[in-house]
């Protein structure tokens, strides 16, 4: 297992290196610089600024500097907030984003799995139809619509929870709900399908033939096996949360990474865009690593083969 994890971490580093390079060159091919919108600048002033931020050097040199700095943990300095290192800007904003993401992921998978299990165990009853209806709703309503609805009814009309402010746990509830809908729906649908398939398999019949009740069959034999494929969709689900969070953060005025990212794109703030992209990539690869390890824990076939491969 340790060997397996080491190998995965090396892959992770290579993946990040490639993503960093690709992001760098993509940014270079984008038209414009952060200062091209500033009409009032003279050509000389523009050149001074370019020189200050190293934008006048040949691209290979810029690339080298960029990569070396990344390894040092330096993501450069923001263009819009003068002299603020990107790393610091990101760090200041990671907290709220992570909190929302983790809360939404946990709530999403737990409620989603529970709904899916209920739907599968009571297939073709009103419980099943109800869960399906919720899942379709959760998947088809865009998170910003939901965010606005929650804000208006629960925040403004009922006044139960704060709107568009960020202090304490209570202000994270509405954005978490808005974010969690998609994972709930995804996990519920997936779990239902998988569990119904597992219920039809021979080893479940054998489990019944041993004298297990329906509940025991589900808990001891079926759910674990149905979870294995669900783990695969956790990754894409996490991505969904990250992209969803940009909009939700904006609507609820959450001082998170997503909100800053949107702002930076509008102002061509290269270092922040690249830094955020890298950060998202890092998060994603770590999530994928965690998922692989989870796989190993749940599925003995992977655990044992992975070790000696």
């Amino acid at each position, binding site marked *: 297992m340790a060997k397996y994890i080491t190998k995965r971490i090396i892959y992770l580093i290579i993946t990040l290196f490639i993503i960093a390079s690709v992001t760098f060159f993509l940014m270079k091919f984008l038209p414009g610089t952060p200062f091209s919108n500033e009409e009032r600048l003279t050509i000389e002033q523009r050149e001074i600024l370019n020189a200050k931020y190293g934008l006048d050097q040949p691209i290979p040199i810029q690339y080298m500097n960029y990569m070396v700095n990344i390894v040092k943990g330096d993501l450069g300095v923001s263009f819009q907030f003068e002299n603020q290192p990107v790393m610091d800007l990101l760090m200041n904003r990671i907290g709220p984003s992570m909190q929302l993401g983790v809360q939404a992921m946990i709530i999403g998978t737990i409620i989603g799995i529970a709904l899916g299990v209920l739907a599968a165990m009571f297939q073709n009853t009103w419980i099943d139809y109800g869960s399906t209806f919720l899942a379709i709703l959760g998947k088809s309503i865009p998170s910003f619509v939901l965010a606005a609805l929650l804000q208006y009814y629960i925040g403004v009309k009922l006044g139960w929870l704060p709107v568009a402010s960020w202090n304490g746990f209570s202000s994270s509830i509405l954005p978490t709900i808005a974010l969690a809908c998609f994972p709930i729906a995804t996990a519920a649908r997936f779990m239902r399908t998988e569990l119904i398939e597992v219920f039809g398999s021979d080893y479940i*019949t054998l489990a019944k*033939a041993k*004298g*297990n009740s329906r509940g025991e069959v589900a808990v001891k034999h079926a759910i674990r096996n149905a979870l294995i494929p669900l783990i695969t969709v956790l990754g894409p689900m996490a991505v969904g949360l990250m992209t969803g969070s940009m909009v939700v953060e904006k609507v609820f005025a959450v001082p998170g990474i997503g909100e800053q990212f949107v702002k930076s794109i509008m102002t061509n703030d290269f270092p922040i865009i690249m830094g955020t992209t890298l950060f998202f990539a890092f998060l994603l690869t770590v999530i994928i690593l965690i998922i692989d390890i989870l796989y190993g824990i749940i599925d003995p*076939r992977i655990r044992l083969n992975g070790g000696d491969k």
Partner: protein
Amino acid sequence: MKKLLEVKDLHISFHTFAGEVQAIRGVDFDLYEGETLAIVGESGSGKSVTTKSIMRLLPQGNSEIKSGEILFNGENLATASEKKMQKIRGKDISMIFQDPMTSLNPTMTIGKQIMEPLIKHRDLSKSEASKRAVKLLDLVGISKPETRLKQYPHQFSGGMRQRVVIAIALACAPKVLIADEPTTALDVTIQGQILDLMKDLQKKIETSIIFITHDLGVVANVADRVAVMYGGKIVEVGTVDEIFYNPQHPYTWGLISSMPSLDSQDEELFVIPGTPPDLLHPPKGDAFAPRNPYAMKIDKEEEPPMFKVSDTHYAATWLLHPDAPKVEPPLAVQERQAKFRASIKGDK
């Protein structure tokens, strides 16, 4: 011998989009203590449905036991509560399935899977159950049982897995063991080993076995009695000798003629012509009539009752009616019989 299980006039249907599939249409049979009853018949004849209904393991949504009784220990299992059935399953009646590759839970250790019925029905503690599981693995011929207990199904070969399934089924020393084609998915040498193991264990544990197969060669090897199923009914039942040496039903003749024999490798196998009956709209008369070269007019109009051939031998064919013309079994059947006689003499 004492009757252990009595199935009386069992009718089972499946409700499908196309309509009601009358899968079992009046099945009667008894199972005696310590015997092996083979159920043979082509695909779709209702072997699995019949035996699954004994354990009440038919799919819950669309199956229905329409009428009939399944008497076991003075209880009618056809109408028993789910709670009652949970106490019987795995303890008094167990089952072995066709495909050992899919009948074990891939994410649970072999040990846990064997210990489960022991903890459930025998009230053993974990450590007692684990000791018992070691003994069981040893009994079914798996070496190093202590290490094997901690392993997962994917670390076992097909034959080994079937041994594990047998160990699970026999864990609580059930009175009835239902084996639904337990060797079909295995290759020939392994098949022989598993059959020998089952015969051996049957003596040790004194269980009765219902053995489902469509391989008559296996039947001759393991069974005491044979029930031949066709179109959701038992059309002939008798001791192994009676079915092999004195078969009465034309369908049984067809089955025997289509048996491969060792010395006729490249000879073309006889296949019973025609297709199985449509159980959505079962025919009025004998379901086998359209495929029966000996069918008479009455076969198309009225279902034949069970005619008695001997105290242990019954067959449902109008050919046994006193007024029916005398018909000899086809040549192929007579040839096979000569071969059986020779091979069995050779064995003994």
